[in-house]
């Protein structure tokens, strides 16, 4: 510690207020150093986040199809107008809303129930924790194939079981009927993503001090009251973060739908990412596909904004 600083401390303790200590003048190199240290991280973010976003926006403003590389030109908002006037875009948007709106609450409720269960001490808890993780660690593509075979209309195990117990007489084409296709992809995705909620909520539950429950118990609080007044407020931030992340992931997810139904039948499971994927990878229309993905990103931004604003209001 410098002599000046020591004198300052002493004066605070004993004497009248001292004159303000003059800060040592920092050299320009010291001022720049933090920014220089941040530069690699900024560069990486620019490369892997900002550049693709800017490039996608750029493509969305061009007529650009890989089949016609010599016919790429700036087309302004044409791709956006095409999307917004295309009935398929609005159908896909509705399907995306149904997909997210169905999977999210079911995953959350099941995940919460499992988290509460795993937070209790009982024999075999470790085995349950490990087995709950299983759907999460299986790759999405494998999950989709697994469910596709389970639900196969002719040879699937689920139809076979239902026929054996006498619930149905002949196999149901689950994936080939518009009235059941969305429901079964929702079930598959729920199974796959539910451990995410279970684990995150379990971690939050375990951070709640046990003393609070003991005190509430002594005060005669019921189980429901303990959940409402202790558990829920303690884990609400985790719930908000996980649901927000899940909304974004679900709205962007494609692999389970693509592998199980390819967006069919009769476009019943065609969500916006399916449209983007088809237009870019099959249609090779990068301009239009980029416009659809930019619109999806804007819709998601709006949803996230509303969600965060509501969270702040609740606070």
């Amino acid at each position: 510690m410098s002599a000046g600083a020591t004198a300052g401390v002493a004066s605070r303790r004993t004497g009248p207020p001292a004159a303000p200590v003059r800060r040592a003048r920092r050299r320009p190199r010291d001022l720049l150093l933090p920014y220089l240290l941040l530069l690699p991280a900024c560069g990486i973010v620019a490369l892997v986040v900002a550049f693709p976003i800017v490039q996608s926006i750029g493509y969305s403003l061009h007529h650009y199809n890989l089949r016609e590389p010599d016919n790429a030109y700036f087309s302004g908002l044409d791709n956006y107008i095409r999307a917004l006037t295309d009935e398929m875009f609005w159908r896909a948007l509705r399907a995306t809303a149904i997909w997210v709106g169905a999977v999210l609450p079911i995953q959350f409720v099941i995940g919460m129930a499992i988290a509460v269960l795993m937070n209790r001490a009982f024999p075999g808890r470790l085995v349950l924790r490990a087995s709950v993780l299983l759907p999460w660690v299986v790759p999405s593509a494998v999950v989709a194939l697994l469910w596709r075979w389970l639900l196969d209309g002719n040879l699937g195990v689920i139809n076979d079981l239902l026929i054996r117990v006498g619930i149905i007489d002949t196999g149901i084409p689950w994936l080939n009927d518009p009235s059941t296709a969305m429901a079964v992809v929702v079930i598959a995705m729920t199974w796959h993503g539910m451990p995410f909620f279970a684990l995150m909520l379990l971690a939050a539950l375990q951070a709640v001090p046990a003393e609070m429950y003991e005190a509430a118990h002594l005060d005669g609080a019921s189980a429901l009251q303990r959940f409402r007044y202790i558990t829920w407020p303690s884990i609400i931030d985790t719930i908000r973060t996980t649901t927000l992340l899940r909304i974004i992931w679900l709205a962007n997810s494609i692999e389970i739908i693509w592998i199980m139904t390819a967006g069919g039948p009769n476009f019943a499971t065609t969500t916006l990412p399916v449209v983007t994927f088809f237009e870019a990878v099959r249609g090779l229309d990068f301009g239009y596909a980029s416009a659809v993905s930019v619109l999806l990103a804007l819709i998601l931004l709006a949803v996230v904004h509303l969600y965060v604003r509501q969270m702040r209001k609740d606070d």
Partner: protein
Amino acid sequence: MSAQKTSISRRTLLRGAGLAAAGTALSACIPGPGTGGGGSSGGSQKLRLRYWAWVDDPTSRVLSDLADRFNENHPSIEVDVELMPASAVYERLLAAINAGDPPDASAIHVNNVADIAAMGALHPLDQYFDAMPDKDDFVPTAVLGSRLGDESAPLHTMPWYGLVSYLYYRPDWFRDAGLPEPRTTDDFVSACRAVTDPAAGRYGYGLRGATHGHIHYFIWLATLGGLEAVQGPDGAPVFHQPEHIAGTDWFLDLARTHQVVPPTASGDGFEQLMNNMKAGVTGTAIHHIKSSETLVAALGAENIRAVPMPVGPSGRRWTEFGPSMNAVYAGGQDPEAAWEWVSYLASPEAMRIFCTEDGGLPVRQSVGADPYFQENPFAKVSIDSLPDAYLIPFTERPGYARLAEQTWPQLTQPALAGEMTSAEFAGRLAEDVR
């Protein structure tokens, strides 16, 4: 707006998009046994040719072995074979061509040739082919396939092998029902009705309602009314017009009226088609020789047979010839050296080896006459069907991929369920390739 005036830095845009597409496509790629390296090797004078292809069995070494044989006899060339899934080849090709770095040669699906040719990426092969002393040995349908069905068009690709669609059927089912093998479309419908038993989970026909099932639809339409009921003289679709809609009615009635297809038909693709045959769910299905081995293994040689497509009311038969071919790229290092390689693959020796191991049909008459192919009943049916085998119409049209991979699989469900009229169904399909 003029493209000339407003074009952005095209090279930059194309390279960026090419890389983006490559990123997407690469996720589906499986590295093959070759090294995949391009350009001349640093230490030697050998020209290293990049060749992309697919084989049905990804563990097969048949192409690498052929490349080894070729390399031994060509001291100045070394072919690097890179295998990838069939579905990835086209996407990678487009990305590579746009990025200015195509392979020297590749296998290519007939459906994709028109697009790649329109980009000016293919090196025409007429001059080399015309100089071949044994060029007349090639099956004319295959050569025509390399010209995309137009005699006056350049030879875009080198014929390699072919696949001819025919009808598989279960002789044990037919025998039990007292039915002869299906020779006509009427026989076919009657037989399908006779063997269908939904309570037992048995159906007469394995209809392919998922992607690329339109091929079978067009086969039936052309069988029933001739190709002129599918495609007009100018190449435009006519199958949706009122005078030809009876063909679509006949096809959809297999589900709507006769109910001889499984209830899953609208979503059944190749995988389900084969599994349904193997599991005894369906009694007939259209496919080609490449599925014969797995069907025989599952059902036994006595319980699976093939016949040429049934003839229509006019006595005519029509089926699909699916040519597999190799392309040489104009942007490659040395098109002449690449020609050496693809012409070697089409040589009698290499064609015999490849078709024997990979299951394709040789497109050289001398190789087709080989006892191996003549004694194989499925190859025999394929060869017998060749005179009535043609390219599927509309493959050269830009909307063909959309028809095959989006419109068809999405609309088969309402069409087969009777929720969409034949005219609407055919009209929506025709719209893609108009």
